[in-house]
């Protein structure tokens, strides 16, 4: 379990950082994910890749629960929280337009795109995390890409027109 958590912890942290408004919340969510993983260690999958998926499934549940309830600060996350206060990377301005387009997608498409492009999962893995069958995920993903292409083209058009 330790090695599984250690190898996934940075990715889990990023997963939460990308889905919370307050970066420090990511520390508490990661701590809660680790606690739940330790509590369920008896059912930790044997294969490395299944372990990673298992941890992200727990993380998704923790995130969903956090959105439904007021979260308590975890004492265990204190050190990580202060770390995040100091260590947040700068946000490239060029990314914001694309991110805004992603965030304007329908929720079902948005999470799929985030899992694939921000967290590095394959479509099949993202489908598993979202409880979708792969074919549904593929069609949903294709629709999301089409929507994003349109949105980014629309966003670029007025700027181009303004320069001529």
């Amino acid at each position, binding site marked *: 379990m330790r090695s599984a*958590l250690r190898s996934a912890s940075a990715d889990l*942290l990023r997963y939460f950082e990308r889905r919370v408004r307050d970066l420090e919340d990511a520390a508490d969510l990661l701590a809660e994910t680790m606690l739940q993983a330790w509590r369920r260690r008896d059912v930790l999958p044997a294969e490395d890749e299944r372990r990673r998926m298992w941890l992200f499934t727990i993380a998704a549940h923790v995130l969903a629960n956090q959105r439904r309830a007021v979260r308590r600060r975890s004492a265990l996350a204190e*050190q*990580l929280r202060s770390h995040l206060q100091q*260590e947040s990377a700068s*946000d490239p301005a060029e990314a914001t337009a694309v991110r805004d387009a*992603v965030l304007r997608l329908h929720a079902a498409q948005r999470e799929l795109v985030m899992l694939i492009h*921000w967290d590095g999962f394959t479509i099949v893995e993202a489908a598993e995390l979202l409880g979708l069958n792969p074919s549904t995920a593929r069609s949903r993903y294709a629709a999301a890409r089409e929507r994003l292409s349109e949105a980014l083209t629309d966003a670029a058009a007025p700027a181009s027109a303004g320069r001529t």
Partner: protein
Amino acid sequence: MDLDELLRRSAPPSARHSPALDRTLDRLVVATEAHVRAPRRLRRFGFVAAATTGVVGLGTVGAVAAGLVPGWVPWATESGRSCQMQFIAQPRGDDGEPATVEYPAADQQRAADEARRFLADFDYRSIDTSQAIAQWQRSEDAAIAATVPGEQQPRLDGADLELSAVGRVVWLRLQAHLEAEGFTRPADAVGFAQAWRCE
């Protein structure tokens, strides 16, 4: 730039990857392990005294924890091993224990805050190690004597013994302090755990 690359670059910023972040994450892994394993070990030992004191030894797995008290307490054992200890005090409710009439969540929090202040200022050099070990072993003997044959845990030895014994003293003094501050039956308000690592 194609859509895939645009999307990849659009990920919100996150903490910069660094050795310091890795260390913090490693500590969190072990701290959460310590947090979860602590009650189980407590039950396994079946120490009546430990159950009431809440002192938890995690040394057999070489636990490292990141908790509320900033930093670790360096500790050289009688046998010359270089160790570090950390103590974690938090509201019992954070352990999943329901709030009681006597200790609603706000009072648990006040007690835990006071416990952390106490631990942050505690003079660990004031502990008489030999005496602490003798006290621990008496509790251990009593617990083993009260346990069904075949379910008895082995006695602690070496650094595990010494650090467990020291942790027990810390908890006893913490309880006395909290009682003096007006928190009756502090074990009902504050969850206490100890973790350590040795070179």
